[in-house]
């Protein structure tokens, strides 16, 4: 008798995939379709009056120069956050991979920040950089730099990027470290015998072998920077000064949950969703080709 690799009846496979499908429907398809519908409405906060306004919310968004500006800011913020957190995590992982004594302690310490809630991370950095009472702002003043993220947009942007990437370094570190440890020692040792220097070994052997991990993390980090960072912005700068840290997702949160403009906020979240879907498709089509599995 030959072994069959397909299910003989339909019942079991459906049962096996059902939980995943239900979760996707309930936690993604349903809310996303609600957002889509909501984005076509003009409603008062209590939901007492509701008008169908077609694409008015979108037209209002795209005729607002401040909204268009926040696209550019979001690109800067996301690229810097993803770049910084991936870079630092890779560096730390490469170092931790070579540590012999106390490796567990190092790893545990580096993983800690991931357990911190975004808003708490924001508050932490907010205090350290507070122009009046912050220790880091004080040290910078000693070096001759007058740090003031209340007035200077660049300082504020650096603050939110630092806070957002600091939190994400731990996550990236875990994956990079696991990826590094899966690379066979023999390959690296062979290269060493052939006379390749540590940097050369890393760049020509380790990094290509790490590319699946790096690609996965790139996607995750971009999604994180686009969607998950409003808590940090809210706790540190509230989008200011003068909108210099108002990234797209913060505006969604602020207009919807603070301003109670549900239609406008839903329209923004639909735009944001479209941007991230496009980005992810792009990443899978063009960057994934360079990944060696």
């Amino acid at each position, binding site marked *: 008798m030959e072994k069959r690799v397909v299910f003989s009846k339909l019942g079991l496979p459906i049962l096996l995939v059902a939980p995943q499908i239900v979760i996707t429907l309930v936690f993604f398809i349903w809310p996303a379709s609600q957002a889509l519908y909501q984005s076509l409405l003009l409603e008062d*906060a*209590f939901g007492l*009056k509701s008008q169908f306004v077609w694409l008015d919310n979108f037209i209002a968004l795209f005729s607002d120069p401040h909204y268009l500006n926040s696209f550019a800011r979001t690109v800067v913020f996301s690229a810097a956050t993803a770049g910084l957190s991936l870079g630092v995590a890779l560096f730390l992982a490469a170092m931790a991979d070579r540590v012999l004594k106390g490796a567990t302690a190092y790893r545990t310490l580096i993983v800690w920040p991931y357990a911190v809630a975004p808003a708490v991370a924001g508050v932490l950095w907010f205090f350290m950089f507070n122009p009046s*009472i912050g220790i880091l702002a004080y040290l910078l003043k000693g070096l001759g730099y007058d740090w003031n993220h209340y*007035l200077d947009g660049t300082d504020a942007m650096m603050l939110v990027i630092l806070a957002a990437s600091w939190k994400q370094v731990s996550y990236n570190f875990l994956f990079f470290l696991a990826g590094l440890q899966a690379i066979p020692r023999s390959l690296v040792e062979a290269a060493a015998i052939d006379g390749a220097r540590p940097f050369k070994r890393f760049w020509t052997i380790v990094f290509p072998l790490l590319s699946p991990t790096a690609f996965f993390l790139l996607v995750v980090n971009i999604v994180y920077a686009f969607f998950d960072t409003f808590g940090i912005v809210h706790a540190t700068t*509230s*989008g200011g*000064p*003068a909108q210099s840290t108002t990234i797209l997702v913060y505006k969604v949160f602020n207009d919807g949950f603070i301003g*109670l403009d549900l239609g406008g906020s839903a329209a923004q979240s639909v735009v944001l969703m479209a941007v991230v879907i496009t980005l992810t498709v792009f990443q899978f089509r063009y960057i994934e080709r360079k990944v060696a599995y």
Partner: protein
Amino acid sequence: MKPKFLPIAVGATMAVGYAGSALAATEIQWWHAMGGKLGEKVVEIAEGFNASQSDYKVTPVYKGNYTETMTAAIAAFRAKQQPHIVQVFEVGTASMMAAKGAIYPVYQMMADAGEAFDPKDYLASVTGYYTDTDGNMLSMPFNSSTPVLYYNKTAFEKAGIAGPPTTWPEVEAAAKKAQAAGYPCGFTTGWQSWVQIENFSAWHNLSIGTKANGFAGSDTEFVFNSPDHVKHIGQLAEWQKSKVFDYGGRRSESAPKFYGQECVMYMNSSAAYAGVKANAKEFEFGVSALPHWADVGSAPQNTIIGGATLWVLQGHDAEDYKAAAKFFSYLSSAEVQADWHQFTGYLPITTAAYELTASQGFYEKNPGTDVAIQQMTGKAPTENSKGLRFGNFVQIRDIINEELEAIWGGSKSAQEGLDDAVSRGNALLRKFEAATGG
């Protein structure tokens, strides 16, 4: 009372419900936004009411800051789980008033419940903000404050400054003297839109918006880019360069500048009194009226309030509303109000509470605590100083914050920044008008 959980079936779509058993006393929910010491005081008030009788029970629930509490109550209303009473800050007033089917006007509830209630007992400058065009009080004032000037007495003595400044040129002179004496900054402000735009306007009898600041209709438009406003904001921007004025954040983040003796003057809510008192450890401080420009408008007029009121939401039993009415009577009794006023620095909402506090000698023992009351009640309010009623004002304050920050940072002139704030604000006013049907 134990919640009884229904068996939970497999699947994420199943709702979890629990049934509560009936209670002897009618229980009502009060959602509030008072954290820390103020929150403890709120619980004390509710417990005081619960102990004073046995038919009704008020349960206070802390829901986060003002915006979070309001958002939570609205979300709860949409899900038909609304509390009976919710504390809403003053800028949410227009949104609440427009929600006609959602709110139960206080004057009406008091009448329906047969509870004695006379709007004249309350301070006119407080209730004016929450009264409709027919003179009916729609919500119950709870915590109201107004901005005042805090100054560092010790620093003033060191720098040889005679007394608290009453005009803006005097503020500049005092700031420069303090800077010469080694203090890095003259003054800072909390809640810049509230203090430097909204209250600046009322204090100088200037309009913020047309239609009596929105009281006479939602087809109002902003006018706070007048030459007088531009002059004031332009002057602050000029002072920012030399740190006569130093910006320190949108809400009260600037407080450490005053506590740490970086700035010798600080403009913020009269309710910041407790905080200043607790943190001003190394120096003596004083409280004084907001400064004014002698040549602008008819200053000083009167200032307007900030803070919050209690709104009653529709959708509960008549018996529940009786409980709410009884609770409001208790809350506005002179004893409870006087205690709240003295403890927090918020204004007393009734004349009786003010008189009781005065007769107890509180103002003599705590000089400066009556500045806010005098500032509010010194003159009969005009159309410009009664308050303001603009829809979407939470978002509009953000816009004003953004544009002011651009002005302080130097990327826009005062004229450009205020013009942009007015035009962006007007767009949101039109949106509110459309959403609420005029």
